[in-house]
């Protein structure tokens, strides 16, 4: 035990540290925690990779008259599912966990602003999603002939679909984290919409236009369908638009729906976020 002398007369406290700065340091901490937690890495990071390898490995016949292989369609669409996994699933389960293990409680008992907590989460999710996309792209290129576009415009599309998709799905993930009653039930509660949406959004089943129309309508309501379509528009030739519901890539509509989800998701979070479990008083 060391003896340390602090003046017993307390001088006025300086200003608390800047919200952004605290957020940045939380982001670094969140990232460290994410990659150290093996379950999280396996669950949210590796799952889409494994699904891609399996699906594209099984369905690799060429689609008639296009020269495009089914595996290429899967590889492009799976990028969207990968992002949903590292945002929606990761935050949905991660925040439920934070609520249960006392992370959120501790934060509320310190001068850490809650905004900084969310900045930290968003930063974590951006980095992890970026890494996920890199892995999926590399795998798609090496194993499944995914064509990297040479056109800068396509990469621009890639950029905004990625960014809007990450933000929209992250906000949805924060919102759904309040639904499960405990961390234990969180992964089940969150996997259900995740898997379900993949079937109706043109990820696990393509071409999407062959789905029954109620399913297409459900899928079209959520961001995953538009992200998958956006990524297909980047990595597949325009001759593939005949497989889309509208017969075109619909970039304008894609942007509109994704932006709407960013705004709506934020409102949903603000309305529904809970700091504690019902058991915590």
């Amino acid at each position, binding site marked *: 035990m060391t003896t340390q002398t602090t003046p017993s007369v307390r001088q006025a406290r300086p200003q608390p540290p800047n919200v952004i700065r605290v957020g940045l340091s939380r982001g670094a901490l969140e990232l460290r925690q994410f990659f150290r937690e093996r379950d999280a890495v396996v669950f949210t990071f590796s799952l889409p990779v494994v699904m891609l390898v399996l699906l594209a490995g099984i369905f690799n016949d060429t689609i008639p008259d296009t020269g495009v292989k089914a595996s290429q369609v899967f590889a492009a669409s799976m990028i969207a599912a990968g992002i949903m996994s590292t945002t929606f699933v990761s935050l949905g389960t991660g925040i439920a966990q934070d609520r249960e293990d*006392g*992370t959120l409680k*501790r934060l509320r*008992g*310190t001068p850490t602003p809650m905004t900084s907590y969310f900045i930290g989460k968003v930063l974590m999710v951006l980095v992890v999603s970026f890494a996920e996309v890199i892995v999926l792209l590399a795998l798609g290129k090496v194993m499944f002939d995914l064509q990297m576009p040479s056109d800068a415009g396509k990469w621009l599309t890639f950029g905004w679909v990625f960014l809007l998709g990450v933000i929209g799905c992250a906000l949805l993930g924060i919102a759904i984290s309040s639904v499960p009653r405990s961390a234990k039930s969180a992964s089940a509660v969150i996997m259900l919409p995740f898997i379900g949406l993949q079937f109706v959004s043109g990820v696990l089943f393509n071409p999407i236009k062959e789905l029954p129309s109620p399913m297409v309508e459900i899928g079209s309501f959520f961001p995953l369908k538009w992200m998958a379509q956006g990524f297909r528009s980047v990595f597949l030739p325009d001759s593939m638009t005949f497989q889309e519901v509208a017969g075109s890539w619909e970039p304008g509509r894609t942007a509109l729906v994704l932006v709407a989800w960013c705004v709506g998701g934020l409102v949903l979070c603000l309305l529904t976020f809970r700091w504690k479990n019902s058991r915590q*008083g």
Partner: protein
Amino acid sequence: MTETAVHVRGLSKRYGGTPVVDGLDLDIAHGEVFALLGPNGAGKTTTVEILEGYRDRDAGTVAVLGEDPGKAGRDWRSRIGIVSQTATDASELTVREVVTHFAANYPRHRDPETVIEQVGLGEHAKKRVGRLSGGQRRRVDVALGIIGDPELLFLDEPTTGFDPEARVKFWQLIRQLSAEGTTILLTTHYLDEVEALANRVAVIARGRLKTIGEPETLGGRATAGAVVSWREDGRLMERETTNPDQFVAELVGKSGGHVPGLSVQRPSLEDVYLQLIGTSEDLDTTPELRKETA
């Protein structure tokens, strides 16, 4: 500076219609070490968490460092330190990472390395929190409670799981913080801890205040009858007296200087405590049991 660090009047909290905290009044002075004592389920954690701003109250007025904890903001939270009864967060981070991180969230903080040493985790600084033993994990909570150099420190059963040496070290740390002017609100089940640390203690049972006072005089301890015992002709003698000083003086005088096996015992804090909560609670909680034994 407001007059008291903690001011509570008529505090009440119910869960599902059952009162858990029932009209509690408390005042804790600046610089005081105040202990809250009571059996499991007495409402200690509930009370403390209301004061920390974690839980809402159903009735009563509360001022902690002059502010209502339910409405207080960031500045207020940088002036308090909290060690909750249960925490299992940050298990993937090392001790040093988590202490250093939280230090940077406060406007003014203690040196992380010093604090890690102070709680006795110096040699475990690089270990992940989730891999620490129960008592070591608890010390991380204590480190995080004091890292922001709080004016008021809440400790909810801080030494649960501490080995005897760690507990004594912890007591030294608390005394040092207190000497530096920190106000401390402590809950515990260890009566020796109360005697070692607290300036004042409140005993609560079923959410109600049973008694409040200095540990030395609690429940009339200091003035209660003492039992003097000694050996005379090889036999154990005992005498209850309200004036042991005089009685012992007489004994010494009679025996001509040496009284074999002399001891004077006053009721221990434990005796007083058990009596207090025994009479308060069990009369109406175990009527069936009483009938059977009667």
